[in-house]
């Protein structure tokens, strides 16, 4: 499938933004500037962007604890996200959510989710709402290989199939649930095979290849919009960092991350493909890189100076709409 320049440019910008955001968060975390847990998405950008390229603000996604990439791919404000990671009052969730709970419902982003397997039932609900209200919209749940083994996820696969919901189950298999290998924890080896069990089409795709993800996801989204039910997509790749920042990753093979960065980098792959095909030039991509880096630097500068929430006001608000 031939993609037009706008789609290519926008997709590259988003993938590059995710990478730059995560590299920066890695550095900031090391300096102690960020409280709490952060789980980085670097290396997995092609999945979030390849899928979300087919969605608009009314289509819904639910994400995982490794959610920054999905947020950016779905259009969340990057400065607002950085402010949130700093716990600032002007963060996208007012500093009350943090890295693991970033959401922007106006963008169809229903939240990163710090409960592994927490998201799939919610996505079933979003898809049910789309179906009931006849909006023609779809829902996507991003789930890791760890989440693929949760009962909530397996129940949701069944429910989505029984109810023929307009949704995608995107399983991002990065090889590890925390420190546990997916080759061991996922019975049957491939998550893909579960599609057959739940009577829905299933695809396995190389997550280093944006174009492959984009094409498969596009077909699945169209299928959902046509009312033909859910699709399972297993995206296989590796993460460039640990489970969370501070993870020494001694469970990984020696040289594994270096090899991933050298040979399985979706951004390098993208650049090579589009420049060889003369769809975009190296200098155009360089210009995007520079813009993205400036935007991230600016977001950090703003976040460092921004005000914290006010305990006298903000601690007790927004528990309920009315109580």
């Amino acid at each position: 499938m031939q993609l037009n320049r706008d789609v290519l440019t926008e997709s590259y910008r988003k993938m590059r933004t995710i990478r730059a955001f995560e590299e920066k968060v890695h550095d900031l975390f090391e300096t102690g500037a960020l409280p709490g847990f952060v789980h980085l998405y670097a290396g997995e950008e092609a999945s979030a962007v390849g899928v979300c390229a087919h969605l608009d603000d009314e289509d819904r996604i639910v994400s995982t604890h490794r959610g920054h990439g999905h947020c950016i791919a779905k259009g969340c404000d990057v400065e607002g996200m950085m402010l949130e990671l700093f716990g600032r009052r002007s963060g996208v969730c007012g500093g009350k959510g943090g890295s693991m709970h970033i959401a922007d419902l106006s963008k169809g982003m229903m939240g990163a989710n710090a409960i592994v397997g927490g998201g799939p039932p919610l996505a079933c609900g979003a898809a049910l709402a789309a179906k009931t209200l006849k909006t023609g919209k779809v829902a996507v749940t991003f789930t890791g290989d760890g989440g693929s083994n949760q009962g909530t996820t397996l129940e949701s696969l069944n429910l989505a199939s029984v109810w023929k919901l307009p949704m995608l189950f995107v399983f991002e298999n990065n090889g590890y649930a925390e420190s546990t290998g997916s080759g061991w924890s996922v019975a049957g080896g491939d998550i893909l095979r579960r599609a057959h069990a739940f009577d829905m089409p299933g695809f396995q795709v190389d997550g280093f290849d944006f174009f492959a993800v984009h094409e498969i996801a596009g077909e699945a989204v169209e299928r959902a919009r046509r009312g033909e039910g859910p699709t399972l997509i297993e995206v296989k790749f590796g993460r460039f960092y640990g489970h969370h920042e501070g993870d020494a990753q001694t469970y990984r093979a020696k040289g594994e991350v270096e090899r991933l960065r050298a040979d399985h980098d979706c951004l390098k792959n993208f650049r090579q493909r589009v420049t060889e095909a003369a769809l975009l030039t190296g200098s155009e991509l360089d210009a995007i890189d520079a813009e993205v880096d400036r935007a991230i630097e600016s977001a950090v500068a703003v976040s460092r100076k921004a005000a914290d929430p006010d305990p006298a006001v903000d601690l007790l608000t927004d528990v309920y709409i009315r109580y």
Partner: protein
Amino acid sequence: MARILTYRDALREALRQAMEEDPTVILMGEDIAGGKGAPGEQDAWGGDMGVTKGLWGQFGDARVIDTPISEASYIGAAVGAATCGLRPVAELMFVDFMGVCFDQLLNQAAKFRYMFGGKAKTPVVIRTQYGAGYRTAAQHSQTLYSMFAHVPGLKVVVPSTAYDAKGLLISAIRDDDPVIFFEHKVLYDEARDDVPEAPYAIPFGEANFVREGDDVTIVALGRMVHFAAKAADVLAKNGVSCELIDPRTISPLDEDSILESVEKTGRLVVVDESYPRCSMAADIAGLVVDKAFHALKAPIRQVTAPHTPVPFAPVLEDAFIPSPAKIEAAVRSVMKGA
């Protein structure tokens, strides 16, 4: 002329009227129509207690949605759909089954508003039955509302009468926050009241003064309101005047009414069918100790179930449930100042 409805029929009328009023209200649950995918009658059950009977016929498959036995997925789907423009009312057949789906309420529905910085709206209602008295033993008889009341972000409703059941369910469905709605399984048939036909809403956080009195304040919930009323009748004949308060919702809780009453009577008995530890009885006793200690003329008495699972044998189950006699004894004890 009186229009007597059972608790069950009052609940069904509330659901029907809410669905007629708002096309985004949908029902979900196991067997709430019944017969889905089966060769016989459709709408065979109307829920295991018959509360939703007939609604499938009126509103159809798109709004009365049978689910697989898969609470984690469909309770979560109700929560997710609530953030996307629907007002789902999901039936969790027995509250004991919260164990398989609690995450979707505890960590998802309850938290969205706060952790998303005030931007989420999750108007979902979970209807669920609770309580002992049906000989259904340890896994189908528990009174677990206090576990939900513990969680910020959830509202918890415990109606004791058919009148309240209708008005509170209408309020719950119109409410923009997640609401857990507790229906006592014995009350479906036993509670009968004059219930107006026109829709009406009872606000949350407003206790009902079931009877006024001067000597002792009794706070009771759900089925226990009826037991407390029986005890109060007997005590009245013996010259003890009880003020009986039914909070109706435990989150929010009408603290002011409880405190005002204790300020007047100086004595408190709390009746709660749940286990004693971390119960609503303990919570309300703690509230009064904190804020009205000066008014107390006697120790507070809590009448609860014991710290045991709900037993099966009828003689054991009857001993497990707080009785009018136990309530009466507790009142007599505080009247003696002990």
